[in-house]
């Protein structure tokens, strides 16, 4: 799980162009949206594409992201339970 969390942090920085941010700057328990990293709705869509591309997880409903993207840790737990690649 910890390895997946680290991997996710690196991917989030790359995919969302979080310039100047390092994986250790991201608190895996902090909210990704609103406060925390302050991501927006386009970032959420980009994370959905990233989950499908890298882990074979296709969200049937974009609103599911609200729960999954609560934090990096919750996201990692969801990926571990549902990944197909």
């Amino acid at each position: 799980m910890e390895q997946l969390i680290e991997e996710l942090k690196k991917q989030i920085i790359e995919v969302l162009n979080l310039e100047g941010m390092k994986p250790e700057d991201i608190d895996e328990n902090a909210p990704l949206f609103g406060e925390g990293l302050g991501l927006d709705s386009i970032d959420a869509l980009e994370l959905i594409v990233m989950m499908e591309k890298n882990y074979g997880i296709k969200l049937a409903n974009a609103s599911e992201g609200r729960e999954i993207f609560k934090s990096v840790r919750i996201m990692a737990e969801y990926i571990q339970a549902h990944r197909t690649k």
Partner: protein
Amino acid sequence: MMKTYHIASYSKITPTEFCVNGDKMLLRNPESQDLWLHDIYRALNMNYPKFFKMDKLCKSGILAAEPIMQNFMVKPDEIKTNWAIIGMNSVSSLDDDTEYQATIQNENNYFPSPSVFVYTLPNIVIGELAIKYKIQGETSFYIEQLFNTPSFITNVIKTFEVNPQIEYALCGWIDYYEENCDVMMMVITTHPDKSIIELNETNINQIYY
């Protein structure tokens, strides 16, 4: 009384130089590992994390606008309703269109990028400028075959004439395609006391060419 139009400040970004009011602010370092636009961002000491999420057209517009808007940002939170933003270019958003196309080209690797898609319109740069500088006046974006001085001046003056409340315009030619940056921006005003040079064909030609 007939209005007169004046250039209050101007900037230019080419693939090798970044100039403000005719002064060379930064020369491209051929050994730099980063994007030329990112080198300019750092040279300007900007702190605008959203910049890194933008496409290159928007990055170009923001960087060219930043130094020439400084004198007009004394009250940074003030909404500017007497300002217009006028953009022009020749390549539209082709740089982003091409990048987006690549994400949907292969049906076995079909992952359309939302963050690229949102920039597949050239006038998005106008929106980014409006957000950054809190401008809520007139906005327009023109696509032309090539930069044309008379047309540039006509497009700008037309905006002032359409809305008599407009006293300032952040305007420019903002072109970016395949790492080729061709950007000229200026603040044009009806206030002679803000003028560094007059708005006329000779001066625009001198700045652009």
